[in-house]
C-alpha cells in the first residue's frame, strides 16, 4: 500500500499588516494507511497549520502558497470545494484541542455525531446513532446509551474529548488529525483519553497525525515523530529512534530539559520560625467552602510546591495568603506574626514582604506601561527612590533577570517574548525586596525550553537572595525540578505534604500515587505498562471526581 497522504514542499503564508509572511517554509510528509505520525514542536512551530493543511483547509488569514497535499491521489490544494467537502468528515476527520469549544453548544452530542454520516450519505441516522453508542462503549464512556442525548455542556471535558474522537470515527475515516487533544486536560484525565484514542485508532487501523507539544505523550501515541521548529522541519524518525537517539541540537535540547533538577537542600531545623505559616484556613466563595482546614509552613530559603489538579484549591490558598480572600477560619502568619486577613488592612511593609508572580505574563503586566515604569513603580512606591536612583535600581533588577537594561527599559510588554515578560514579572516582585514570593503556575504557559530558563533563574535568585517560594503548579515535572517540599491538594484539602524526596518515593497516599503515576514518561511503553498495571477496566475509575 502506497502512502495515504503525501505532502510535498508545502509552504504556507500568514497575513499580518496587509502583507503575507511565510509561516510554513516547505514541509514534506508521508503517511501510510494505519500509521500514526507525531508532530511535535513548541508554540508557533506551525503544527496546527500543517495539520489543517493536511485536510486541505486553511484558517482565515492563512493561505497555501506552494506545494501539494495529496490524499489518496487527490491534490487537496487544487481540488474544488465540493471535492474537498466530500472527503472531509468522511475520509479525513479532525479532533480538536478543546472538545468543549468544538462541540456546538446548541445541539445534542449524538446529533452532531450522526451529522457527518448522514450528510455524506454513509449511513442513515438511526444506524449511525447506534454505531455512535457502540463507539462510546468502546471508548468506555459512562452510560454510553444515554450520554449522546446530553448537550455538550452537560458532559465533562475528558468525556467530551472521547466523544469527539468517536465523532471523528463516525464515518470510519482513513485519516484523523488529532490537534493536541489532551493539552487542556488534567493529567489523570489525560490518561483515559490517550488510552481511548490509541485503542480505537489501532482497532480500525486508522492513519493519524497526532499533534502535541508534549514529548512524553507523543511517545505513547506515534509510530513516527516529526519535530518542527518555526515552520521548518527539524528531523523525523520512528519513535524509539527519536527518543533514544535524537540527531539535531534542537531536539536534543528538548530532551535535555526534562532532566533538569535542582539539588536537594538539607532538612529544615525543627523549631525555626517559618517565613509563612498557613494555619488551618477554611475559605469560601460566597457560601460554599472551597478550602478546608489547610495548613503548611514555608521556611526561609525554601521552595514549597503546591500541587493539584484544576479546582483543587491551589490558587485559592494563594489568594488567602495574599489577603485577597480573607479566610473564614484560621490565619496566616508571617515571620511568626499573624497578618490581617484582608490585604487592605495590611501595612505597606507587610504587603512588600510577600510578592506574587503570575501565570499569564500577558495579563500581569500593564500593556500601556514601559518595562521601566513597571519595575520602577514598586521601587519608587516601597523604597521611595526617584529619578536617577530609581533608574539605577531598575537597571540592577533588569541585570538580575538577565535582560540588557538599556535595550529593555523603554519597551512595552507587547514587544517582549513570553519568557522575557515572565522575567519582568519576576523583576517586579524582586523590586519590592520581598522575603517571600508566590509563583502561580509561572511556567505552565511557556514552552519547555523557556520554562526551564525561568526555573533556573528562580533557583539562582533563591540562592542569591535567600527567598522563599510558594510554587503553585499542576506539573509534577516542575515539582521534581525545583521543590524542596511538596503539598498535594485535592478538593480544597491537603492530601499529603512533606519533603520532596519522601513524596517521590512510595508509599504515598492513593491520590498522590494516581497523580504521580499519571504523568507520562518518555518511554514509549509507559502507557501500555501503566494500563496493564491498573487493569483496563480501571481506567475509567481513574477519573474519580472528575465528572
Amino acid at each position, binding site marked *: 500500500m502506497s502512502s495515504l497522504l503525501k505532502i510535498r514542499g508545502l509552504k504556507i503564508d500568514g497575513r499580518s*499588516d*496587509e502583507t503575507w509572511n511565510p509561516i510554513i517554509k516547505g514541509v514534506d510528509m508521508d503517511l501510510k494507511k494505519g500509521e500514526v505520525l507525531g508532530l511535535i514542536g513548541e508554540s508557533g512551530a506551525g503544527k496546527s497549520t500543517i495539520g489543517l493543511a493536511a485536510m486541505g483547509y486553511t484558517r482565515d488569514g492563512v493561505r497555501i502558497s506552494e506545494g501539494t497535499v495529496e490524499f489518496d491521489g487527490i491534490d487537496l490544494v*487544487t481540488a*474544488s*470545494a*465540493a471535492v474537498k467537502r466530500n472527503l472531509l468528515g468522511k475520509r479525513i476527520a479532525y479532533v480538536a484541542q478543546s472538545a468543549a469549544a468544538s462541540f456546538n453548544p446548541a445541539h445534542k452530542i449524538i446529533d452532531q455525531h450522526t451529522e457527518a454520516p448522514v450528510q455524506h450519505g454513509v449511513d442513515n441516522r438511526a444506524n449511525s446513532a447506534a454505531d455512535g453508542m457502540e463507539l462510546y462503549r468502546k471508548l468506555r464512556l459512562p452510560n454510553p446509551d444515554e450520554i449522546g442525548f446530553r448537550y455538550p455542556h452537560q458532559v465533562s471535558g475528558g468525556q467530551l474529548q472521547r466523544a469527539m474522537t468517536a465523532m471523528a470515527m463516525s464515518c470510519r475515516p482513513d485519516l484523523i488529525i488529532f490537534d493536541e487533544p489532551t493539552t487542556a486536560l488534567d493529567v489523570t484525565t489525560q490518561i483515559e483519553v490517550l488510552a481511548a484514542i490509541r485503542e480505537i485508532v489501532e482497532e480500525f487501523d486508522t492513519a493519524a497525525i497526532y499533534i502535541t507539544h508534549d514529548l512524553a505523550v507523543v511517545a505513547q501515541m506515534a509510530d513516527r515523530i516529526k519535530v518542527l521548529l518555526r515552520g521548518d522541519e527539524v528531523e523525523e524518525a520512528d519513535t524509539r529512534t527519536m527518543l533514544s537517539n535524537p540527531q539535531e541540537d534542537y531536539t536534543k535540547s528538548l530532551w535535555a530539559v526534562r532532566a533538569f533538577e535542582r539539588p536537594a537542600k538539607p532538612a529544615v531545623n525543627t523549631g525555626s520560625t517559618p517565613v509563612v505559616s498557613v494555619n488551618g484556613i477554611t475559605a469560601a466563595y460566597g457560601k460554599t467552602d472551597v478550602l478546608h482546614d489547610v495548613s503548611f509552613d514555608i521556611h526561609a530559603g525554601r521552595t514549597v510546591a503546591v500541587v493539584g489538579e484544576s479546582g483543587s484549591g491551589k490558587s485559592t490558598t494563594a489568594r488567602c495568603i*495574599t*489577603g*485577597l480572600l480573607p479566610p473564614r477560619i484560621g490565619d496566616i502568619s508571617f515571620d511568626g506574626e499573624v497578618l490581617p486577613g484582608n*490585604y487592605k488592612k*495590611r501595612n*505597606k511593609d507587610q*504587603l*512588600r514582604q510577600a*510578592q*506574587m508572580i*503570575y501565570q*499569564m505574563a500577558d*495579563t*500581569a*503586566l*500593564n*500593556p*500601556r*506601561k514601559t518595562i521601566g515604569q513597571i519595575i520602577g*513603580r*514598586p521601587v519608587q*512606591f*516601597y523604597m521611595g527612590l526617584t529619578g536617577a536612583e530609581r533608574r539605577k535600581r531598575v537597571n540592577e533588577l533588569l541585570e538580575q533577570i538577565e535582560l540588557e537594561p538599556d535595550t529593555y527599559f523603554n519597551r512595552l510588554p507587547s514587544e517582549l517574548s513570553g519568557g522575557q515578560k515572565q522575567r519582568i514579572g519576576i523583576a*517586579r516582585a524582586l523590586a*519590592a525586596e520581598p522575603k517571600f514570593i508566590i509563583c502561580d503556575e509561572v511556567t505552565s504557559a511557556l514552552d519547555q525550553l523557556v520554562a526551564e530558563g525561568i526555573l533556573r533563574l528562580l533557583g539562582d535568585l533563591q540562592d542569591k537572595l535567600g527567598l522563599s517560594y510558594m510554587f503553585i503548579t499542576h506539573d509534577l515535572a516542575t515539582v521534581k525540578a525545583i521543590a524542596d517540599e511538596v503539598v498535594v491538594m485535592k478538593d480544597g484539602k491537603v492530601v499529603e505534604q512533606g519533603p520532596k524526596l519522601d513524596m517521590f518515593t512510595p508509599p504515598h497516599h492513593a491520590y498522590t500515587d494516581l497523580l504521580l503515576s499519571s504523568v507520562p514518561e518518555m518511554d514509549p511503553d509507559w502507557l501500555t505498562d501503566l494500563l496493564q498495571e491498573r487493569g483496563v477496566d480501571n481506567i475509567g475509575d481513574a477519573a474519580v471526581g472528575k465528572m
Partner: protein
Amino acid sequence: MSGLLWFVAIVLSIALGAHVFRFAGQKLTGNAPKFRDMSYGVAFGYVLGAFLLFWSVWYYFQPKVLDTGVPNAGVVFFRWAVQGFIIASIAAFLFRLFGRVVGTDGSRKLFRSMPLTASFGILVILIYAIIAVFAGQIAPYGQAEILGAANVMAGGDPAIGGDPAYPLGTDQIGRDILSRLIYGAQNTVGIAFITTLLAFFIGGSLGFLAATLQGWLDQLLSRSVDVLMAIPSLIFALLLMTIASVWADRLGIPLTIFMVLIIAVIDSTRVYRLARAVGLNIVVMDYIEAAKLRGEGLGYLVFKEILPNAMAPLLAEFGLRFCFVFLTIAALSFLGVGIQPPLADWGTMVKDLAPFINFAAFAPTVAAAPLLAAGAIALLTVAVNFVVDWMLHKSSGLKE
C-alpha cells in the same frame, strides 16, 4: 402596475444573467477556481452590481432638463451625488497619499494601513474643525446679522427670487444662510463636543469607580443607570428640555447650557455602562491585582492602571457618542427645543428650510439649502463613524 412588471422583469433578467455569467466564466477560464467554486448568489451579486453600475452611468447622462422645460431634478441631484462621491474619493485618496509621504514614521505607518473611508473621515473631521474654529473669518456675514433682503431664495437665480450675493439665500428675517451654515459648524459641533466630553467625564469616572470599588456603590450606580436608561433618551431629553426652557427663561441662563447638561447626564448612562464593563474587564487583570497588593490607592488604580488601558474602547465610544449627541441635539433643535436662535444650528436650519424640499421638482437649487444643512450633520457623523469603525477594526478588541 407596469412598474412592478418592470421590476420583476429586471430581477429575472439579472437572475438569468448570473447564470450565463458563471457558465461563461467557467468555460472561458477553463474552470478556474474563482468561477468553479462561485456560488450562484455571488454570481447574482456580480451581475446586479454591474447592472447598477450601468444604470447609474445611463442615468447620469440623462438630460438635466426635460422636454417640457421643467428641470429633471432627479438627474440633477444624482449628478451632484455622484460628483460629490468622486470628489470625496479623490480627496480622501490624495489625503492618504499625503499622509503616507509627510509626517512622522508612526503617522506614515498609520496612513499606510488606512482604508479610504477612514482617510475620508479624518479629512472631513479636519475640515469641520477648521471651519468651526475659523467660522468668523470664513463666513461672509455674521450669524445673527440681519441683512437687507429677507427670504432670498437659494441658488442665486433672480428669476425665482434669488440673489447671487447670497448663494444659499437668506432666511425670513434676512440672515445669510451660507454664513449660518458655516457658523452652524461652530455651534452645533462645538456644543456636541462639549456635551460629549462632559458625558464622558461623568459616566467614565463613575463607571471606573464602580468597577474598581464594586459593592454597594456599584449596585447603587448601576441600578440608577438602569432606571435612567429605561426611559427612552429622546423622550426624556424632550421632557427635561421643556422643563429647562422655563428655568432658563426665569433664571436668565441660556437654554443651551441646560441642554448640554441634560444630554450629558442622559448620555453619561451609556458611557457609564461601557466604562464599567471595560473597567471590570481590566480590574480582573493580574496587573491590577498586583497594584492592589502593592497597596496602591484608588486614584493610582483608576488613572494610572485602568484608564490607559481603557482608552482605546473609550475613544471609539467617544466617536459614537459624539455622533449620538450630535444627532440628539439636531433632533431636539428640529423639534424646537434645542439650540436657540440667534445661534445658528443645523437642526433648526433643516426644520426652517425643510419646506423648500417640496419645490425641488421645479427648482432643484432651492431644495439644496435644507439638504446642505442636513447633509452637513450627516457628513460629519458619517466621517466620525468611518474613523471609529476603522479604529475598532484596528484594535479589534471591542467590536460591537
